């Protein structure tokens, strides 16, 4: 058993987007604040801070999670993925990001990081989703300016492109 005392900072070691990462946090520090203020990964956005809006959604050990409903000390030893991990390189967009851009699936971009992370994990587990499944997943996110229609369109287009890529890889093999 380990007891991490209030008011003291404790070291946290985890994997962020495939790379080892470490920082320090008091037990009460939310993962959102830890990622943004301690690690400097500001791609994860902070909206409602009680799990409703979905802006801070990230991936912990392969599953979606609200970073605002997670304590920084809880991710010690975990694999964390954030929106910064989606692009294959600094000057290229990932398939999902490119589909969002083509379809005008974002305007202000506040909700986008969370939606991208939800969809990224979902499409890996469900490579051929229908529109209803995408819309069901999006109930976990609030978008107040773009509207959901272009987001759904972008998600379906990215899914089609990803499965196309997969089948091409198989036929080339």
């Amino acid at each position, binding site marked *: *058993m*380990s*007891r*991490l*005392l*209030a*008011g003291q900072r404790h070291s946290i070691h985890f994997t962020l987007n495939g790379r080892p990462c470490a920082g320090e946090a*008091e*037990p*009460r520090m*939310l993962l959102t*604040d830890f990622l943004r203020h301690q690690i400097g990964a500001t791609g994860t956005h902070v909206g409602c*801070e*009680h*799990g*409703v809006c*979905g802006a801070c*959604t990230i991936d912990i050990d392969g*599953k*979606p*999670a*609200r970073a*605002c*409903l*997670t*304590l920084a*000390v*809880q991710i010690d030893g975990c694999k964390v993925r954030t929106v910064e991990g989606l692009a294959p390189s600094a000057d290229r967009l990932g398939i999902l990001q490119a589909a969002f851009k083509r379809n005008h699936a974002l305007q202000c971009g506040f909700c986008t990081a969370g939606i991208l992370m*939800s969809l990224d994990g*979902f499409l890996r587990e469900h490579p051929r989703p229908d529109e209803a499944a995408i819309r*069901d*997943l999006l*109930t*976990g*996110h609030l978008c107040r300016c773009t509207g959901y229609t272009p987001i759904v369109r972008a998600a379906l287009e990215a899914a089609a492109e990803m499965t196309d890529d997969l089948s091409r890889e198989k036929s080339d093999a």
Partner: protein
Amino acid sequence: MKPAAFDYVRAEHLDEALDVLNREGSDARIIAGGQSLMPMLNMRLAKPRTLIDIMRLPELSRIERKAGTVTVGAGVRQASLLDWPELGQSLRLAAMALPWTGHAQTRSRGTVCGSIAHADPSAELPLVLRALGGEVHLCSARARRRVAAKDFFAGMMATTRADEEMIEAVSFPADQRLCAFREVARRHGDFAIVACAAVATTDGVRLAVGGVADMPTARDFPRLDGSALDDALNAFAYELDARDDVHATARYRRDLVRMIGRDLVREVLQ
């Protein structure tokens, strides 16, 4: 919105968690998936001095079917129960209600027992436990006991759990009885304005309602139809003592209980 300061205890064995609870009582709170407790901490509606994390205890993450009972450990996430291959055969009502419990992004973290411990009157899992007549398995450093769902919920986010006790598991009777579930919420996955569950009984139907009274409430009805059923449901709707709030009026809630209740009762009795 940031939590007040607390010590964070990562338990490696159940005994350690129970020992801390025994010493610190109501100053300590168990955290599992955190999807109910973390908002309370962020809003400072809860200010425990110690949080005890039980998610690294493998013995709590089991789902077991034994002798007609499905037991779900305190570490089982809602998504894990939803993905359990036997869910459709063993717990049909839970299979119907779980997709309404939060969103995919919260079910991946939130636990079944955590939702029941939180005892929100609008939550689906307490309603399912109440409708099926399940039990809550409580343990402390000194003793273990089981409490029937009807005796566990004690009011708005209140239960009969003692300060030094934690929920070790909940158990649901597994069966093939006909059942039905329906919910009305502002957004799919939000807390229910009204949620209803109906389960066939030997001589009729049990209707359980969430989101209206200060806890999930169930009533057994004999086989009724027509105006006799309408009258019985109307009386039940009034007994739930609905209140007006920002989401809906009391009158709208009673309307939903009457309408959804009639549909579900007919569905189960047909």
